[in-house]
């Protein structure tokens, strides 16, 4: 069932650019949505399954991006090696941070992750000799995949979507694995999970690191795609947006997180028609969705179609 959904999703992702290969909304906005899906799916592992909120997820995204940017421009590393180094650095930091930070709960955990995000952001702004400061770092070379230099919006769509499908697939499998079941037990009741012999600390540390790795991976791709990084792409607003994506789409569901990521990406593009009323409409929409679909868009859509199906579908004919 889960994988059926995955294949349908993959088919749409592949079909869209073949039908509209030069359409801005498919290639550029699509690629942007793809990156957001990777980030949201990763954050959802932490929030939806392990029940741990993070208001500093953009920091990991930024660490991956800056690792790629700095290593390729300042040290001339090949892009794939820089990507791997970015993953290694971010993964190590996340792993070291996980134990002490995950001892915290609820709002205290939110505060600690927020503080971590701010510390990383301050570094990006202030360590000008490395990061280029607030004006950012330009001239990042294109991603080189074993001789193929990724260039142009259509190619980037392909690369990012392939990466995204891989992450979604990994996430779906992870959720069904032993680790996933342990996580859900932790979310349900930590104490009970512990009683059943689940090593909570290890399960949570793992998912925290995996979630950070997904974000760093997206960051590396982002740096090469934009050929430019600056701290404002990794600030608190971005972290809050990522949390919003996960909750808006529907927590504890990989497709829900993906749905939220797509919705917010499209919303951002669509809202521009409102000009000065943009924020007003944005706020109202966000509130309305959460009031009327508290379980998130994905569950809402799912139930809606089921209800429609029940009302007008073939079962009625029987």
């Amino acid at each position, binding site marked *: 069932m889960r994988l059926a959904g995955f294949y349908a999703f993959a088919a749409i992702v592949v079909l869209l650019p073949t039908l509209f290969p030069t359409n801005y909304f498919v290639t550029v906005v699509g690629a942007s949505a793809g990156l957001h899906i990777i980030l949201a799916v990763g954050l959802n592992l932490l929030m939806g399954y392990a029940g741990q909120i993070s208001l500093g997820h953009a920091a990991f995204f930024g660490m991956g991006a800056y690792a790629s940017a700095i290593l390729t421009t300042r040290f001339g590393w090949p892009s794939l090696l820089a990507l791997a180094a970015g993953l290694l650095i971010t993964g190590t930091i996340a792993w070291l941070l996980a134990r002490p930070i995950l001892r915290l709960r609820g709002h205290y955990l939110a505060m600690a992750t927020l503080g971590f995000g701010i510390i990383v952001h301050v570094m990006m702004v202030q360590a000008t000799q490395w990061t280029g400061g607030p004006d950012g770092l*330009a001239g990042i070379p294109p991603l080189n995949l074993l001789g193929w230099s990724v260039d142009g919006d259509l190619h980037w769509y392909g690369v990012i979507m392939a990466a995204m499908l891989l992450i979604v697939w990994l996430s779906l499998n992870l959720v069904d694995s032993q680790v996933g079941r342990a996580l859900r037990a932790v979310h349900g009741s930590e104490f009970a999970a512990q009683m059943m012999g689940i090593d909570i600390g290890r399960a949570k540390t793992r998912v925290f690191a995996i979630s950070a790795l997904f974000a760093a991976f997206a960051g590396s791709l982002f740096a090469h795609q934009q050929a430019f990084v600056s701290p404002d792409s990794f600030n608190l607003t971005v972290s809050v947006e990522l949390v919003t994506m996960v909750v808006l789409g529907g927590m504890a569901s990989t497709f829900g997180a993906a749905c939220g990521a797509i919705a917010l990406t499209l919303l951002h593009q669509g809202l521009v028609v409102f000009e000065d009323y943009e924020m007003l409409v944005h706020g109202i929409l966000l509130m309305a969705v959460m009031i009327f679909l508290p379980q998130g868009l994905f569950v809402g859509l799912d139930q809606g179609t089921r209800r429609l199906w029940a009302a007008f579908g073939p079962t009625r004919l029987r």
Partner: protein
Amino acid sequence: MKNLWPTTLLATLLLASVHLASAAEPIKIGSFLTITGPASFLGDHELKTLQMYVEDINAKGGVKGRKIELIHYDTGGNAKDAVSFVKRLIKNDKVDLIVGGTTTGDSMAVIPDVEKESIPFISLAGGVEIVEPVKKWVFKTPHTDRMAAAKIYEDLRKRGLTKVALISGDGGFDKSGHEQLLKLAPQYGMTIVADEFYGNKDSDMTAQLTKIRATDAQAIINFGFGQAPAIVTKNIKQLGIALPLYQSHGVASKNFIELAGDAAEGVRLPAAALVIAEQLPNTDPQKPVLLAYKGKYEAKYGPVSTFGGHAYDGLMIAVAAIQRAGGPDKEKVRGEIEKTKGFIGTAGVFNMSPQDHMGLNLDAFKIVEVRNGAWKIVE
């Protein structure tokens, strides 16, 4: 064959209408500005200026008989959005030319795409790195931060002051201004005796200023925009520091004087002539241009800012180039922008060349001082 005539007529009409439509098709100017976010009060003036003058040009019959259509997006000061919206301008809206980019970060972020897609781009941001080294398709109209730094040092030298304390914000504008101040200091014989920072949304800078007070600084330079420089100005007065204070062109607006109140008295800064247009001698060729822009803008929206002026300069340079090129052909327009000579704008007289994609010199900047709650030109 009896239906031949009506069919032919219809076909001719169709072709004619298609032809007419294409002849009257508007010239599309794209723009991406910071309408919300920290630099929103810069982008706000820029957008209003662009809208007002596009309307004006269209009312007068457009350019070469074709109307101008302005398509704009808000980046929120986020470089990622700037890139995505510039792609949208190029690919989806198919604009002929871009005038925009409120901040240096936004402008730098879109340069790879602009160069790749070969589309003329006039930036409205201050960073010197936008046009240095020269990029084929990229131009800019505001003075650079390097010019601001040079102008401040020139004035300090005239007053015989050589030991300066720097205090700057953490935004792109602040940081690159700070960098230029450090770089130019030896050239003007200046010694930096303190170098402090603050966050642009901080509410108090007395800690940093207390440190500065303990040094032997002879003047303080604060590079920033928004409310923070006004807080710095007030904090300096609160601490009773009697050193001359220099601000950057980022606060050259009435709003700064309103916010800082009495503490603003005696503050000096380099600014475009727009803020002191009335005080220019009648012989100054810039004066009529400045007064015309100021009069028109203030009649519709209230007090002008030099940042709106940069948008005026950018739009007018673009329109003149399209006029000379005989249409919006990108390669030709680019060539004509580069050939801009003696164009009198709000920021000064522009003389561009293949080596200089801004075309302003230091004379375009005036040192102004706050006296009795108003900007006065310093002779």
